[in-house]
């Protein structure tokens, strides 16, 4: 069964009506007690407004009984309907009391109202069928498969409110004030470290060695090369002053050369 086609679980009822068999109990097929009642009522093959409510009540109670025997767990709605119908049945059967209970319509009126309600639901069921049998768009009838897009020439009109403009401005300025220049702190090569390192290198500095060779090689994570050079240079000047190192530069801007001061020269 395709698409919109409803699963007509009334087929079972219609079949039962035709063959005269009892209705097959299949609770899953029904939406609720009213739908069961409608299916049962249709087996009486008369106008729904003229069905025997007494017979309908018996059929329904039989349905509930059968369902329980089959151990179907019936929703509470079904049981409420069953007890209501049992009550209605008893009222229809019992001789009329002198006066009805207060605020309660006569049993015949209640029965008529139920029949009308079934008629109403039946009308809606027929409506579904009538709608579904229409030529539906995209299923039975089709529109233009390749519509010619209308060329839209946009007008130069602009939609924008002053409030929007102000919001945009304030948002802008707020972001601006939130933007502060924060240079990443530069990691420096500590002078103490440079001095320590240079001292340890002294024994190896027997010949003139350029400063850039003496200073440690920069690493991506460590202090920048400039800092390594500068600190090493400062440390070297201190060692020169202490007398442990000699330094020389042949000309301005030329490389600075370092070497350890000869021991015998100091003594």
């Amino acid at each position, binding site marked *: 069964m395709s698409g919109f086609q409803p699963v007509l679980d009334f087929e079972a009822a219609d079949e039962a009506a035709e063959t005269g068999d009892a209705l097959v109990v299949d609770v899953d097929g029904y939406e609720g007690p*009213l739908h069961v009642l409608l299916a049962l009522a249709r087996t009486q093959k008369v106008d729904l407004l003229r069905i025997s409510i007494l017979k309908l009540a018996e059929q329904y109670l039989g349905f509930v009984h059968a369902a329980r025997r089959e151990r179907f767990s019936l929703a509470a709605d079904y049981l409420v309907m069953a007890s209501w119908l049992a009550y209605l049945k008893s009222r229809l059967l019992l001789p009329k009391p002198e006066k009805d209970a207060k605020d309660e319509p006569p049993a015949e009126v209640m029965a008529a*109202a139920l029949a009308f309600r079934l008629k109403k639901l039946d009308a809606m069921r027929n*409506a*579904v069928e009538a709608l579904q049998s229409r030529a539906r768009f995209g299923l039975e009838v*089709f529109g233009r498969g390749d519509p010619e897009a209308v060329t839209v020439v946009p007008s130069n009109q602009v939609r924008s409110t002053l409030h929007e403009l102000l919001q945009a401005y304030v948002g802008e300025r707020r972001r601006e004030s939130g933007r502060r220049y924060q240079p990443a702190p530069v990691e420096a090569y500590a002078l103490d470290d440079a001095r320590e390192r240079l001292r340890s290198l002294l024994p190896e500095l027997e010949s003139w060695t350029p400063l850039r060779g003496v200073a440690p090689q920069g690493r991506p994570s460590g202090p920048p090369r400039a800092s390594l050079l500068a600190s090493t240079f400062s440390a070297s000047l201190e060692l020169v002053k202490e007398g442990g190192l000699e330094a020389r530069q042949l000309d301005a801007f030329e490389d600075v050369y370092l070497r350890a001061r000869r021991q015998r020269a100091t003594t």
Partner: protein
Amino acid sequence: MTGPGEVERMVEALLFAAAEPLSAQELQRRLPEGADVGRALAGLRARYAGRGVELECVADRWRFQTAADLGYLMIEEREEPRRLSRAALETLAVIAYHQPVTRAEVESVRGVQLSRGTLDLLLEIGFVRMRGRRRTPGRPVTYGTTDAFLEHYGLAGLADLPGAADMRTAGLLDLDLPADFTVPDPSRTEADEDPLEPGDDAEFHRDFLTDDQS
């Protein structure tokens, strides 16, 4: 001055090119002043009657569509049909024939509570819309169908719903039928509805939540 034949050509071209049905007003707006749109539409309808393509009025707007008897040829164009459950279809019918109608009234007609997802689905696929609020205690939201619903089923308007006139005459579309089976009162007022206000949407969804909890 544009002659009637020329106007008919123009309407024909516009409707052929359009991706959506066009109302007489929309057609009028795109035509030279004084063009008789009604006459052109009537002329085109007659001209295309019985052809492979026909002129139809749906939801008060006009569209060309293929003839219903040729649907079987359009295998490649056929859309994957939406699978609506029987409960959804019945709910749709109750809403279509009884609108404006509240959720409780739909449930009363069907004798069963709307299962979760039924109404949502109809709203989501755009066949059903919130119309307003009933002027009764609690001011419940009322539902109705959309133009998309009419377009899908090829209906010019709600008056064309199949069998609606007979049902109305028989009192079958009356809603004043409380759940306790009292005799219906055939007098039904339709004006007791307030339009939806902005923000009602959210409230509606809260409704849904509380419904689900119950």
